[in-house]
């Protein structure tokens, strides 16, 4: 069953292309900020559709977006966050599980492709994957950092979009420091093999988990949309 939320998201992406450059930047900041909130994903997309519609109509009337919604975009988003429908515990859990499975799956794939495992599979038909402490710690660190960076960027979208030099420098330093730390952990703690597994089993587990979480999410989103109509 196709996810109607994704359908709506695609429609919004098409609408975004009709926005002027200035309005597109404003919309991007607003949507980014709304994503940091506890609002339902579907509601965020509906709000996005309506705000984009307002901006497009304003463009056609030769008005500016701030003539329509005011100058304080952040305050408008705060009002919308206060008044909109909130995520349920089930939705939050599914969202976290999706990010975890996707993040760990990607890092796991990188581990297979960029270690001797891929050579062993191709040359010798051996599927043994050594699980090292470095892999576990760096994966944990990378997932936590990805969560933190995402939260920081969405919560501060308006401040960050001002493109001031100080913010850019802080971002570059933070980004470099984090990934250097991940690499150092990986290199210095990488030799201790905790156990060895057939790499097909975790692959299978992660693939099933991904499909399961994705289909549960799709089903829930579609059910939720039905209740809105």
């Amino acid at each position: 069953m196709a996810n109607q939320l994704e359908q709506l998201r695609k429609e919004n992406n098409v609408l975004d292309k009709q926005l002027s450059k200035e309005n597109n930047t404003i919309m991007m900041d607003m949507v980014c900020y709304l994503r940091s909130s506890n609002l339902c994903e579907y509601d965020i997309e509906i709000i996005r559709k309506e705000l984009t519609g307002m901006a497009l109509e304003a463009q056609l009337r030769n008005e500016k977006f701030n003539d329509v919604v005011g100058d304080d975009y952040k305050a408008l988003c705060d009002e919308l966050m206060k008044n909109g429908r909130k995520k349920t515990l089930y939705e939050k859990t599914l969202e976290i599980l999706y990010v975890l499975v996707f993040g760990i799956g990607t890092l796991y794939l990188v581990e297979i492709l960029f270690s001797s495992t891929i050579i062993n599979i191709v040359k010798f038909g051996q599927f043994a994957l050594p699980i090292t402490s470095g892999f576990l710690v760096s994966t944990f660190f990378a997932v936590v950092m990805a969560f933190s960076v995402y939260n920081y960027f969405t919560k501060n979208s308006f401040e960050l979009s001002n493109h001031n030099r100080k913010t850019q420098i802080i971002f570059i330093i933070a980004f470099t420091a984090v990934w250097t730390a991940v690499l150092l952990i990986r290199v210095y703690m990488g030799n201790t093999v905790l156990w060895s597994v057939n790499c097909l089993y975790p692959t299978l587990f992660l693939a099933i988990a991904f499909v399961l979480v994705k289909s549960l999410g799709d089903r829930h989103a579609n059910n939720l949309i039905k209740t809105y109509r």
Partner: protein
Amino acid sequence: MFDKSQLMRGTLEGCILKIISLEVTYGYEIMIKLTGYGFVDIREGTIYPLLVRLEKKDLISGEFRPSPLGPSRKYYFITKGGREALNSFEAYWQSISVTVSKILSLEVE
């Protein structure tokens, strides 16, 4: 100075319900009507969060319909709960406006 935002919010919600009860309409048109009736400094961005709130409380319901100007618009119509809320708002407003007017017309003896 008097903080008018709290008073405005409740009053505007009642007025929006009234406008929607008269005909199915959309955000920009509601804003034009409100300014036409004398509400100053009202923008679409002022009433949009209120529409979201009213919809969340099931007092109004929205539906996207094609628009002659740009993308589809969300048109709002009042629900049964919305009519009940509007009736109680009207009754309460009548009583409170009389009372407040009496108090504000008092003069120092």
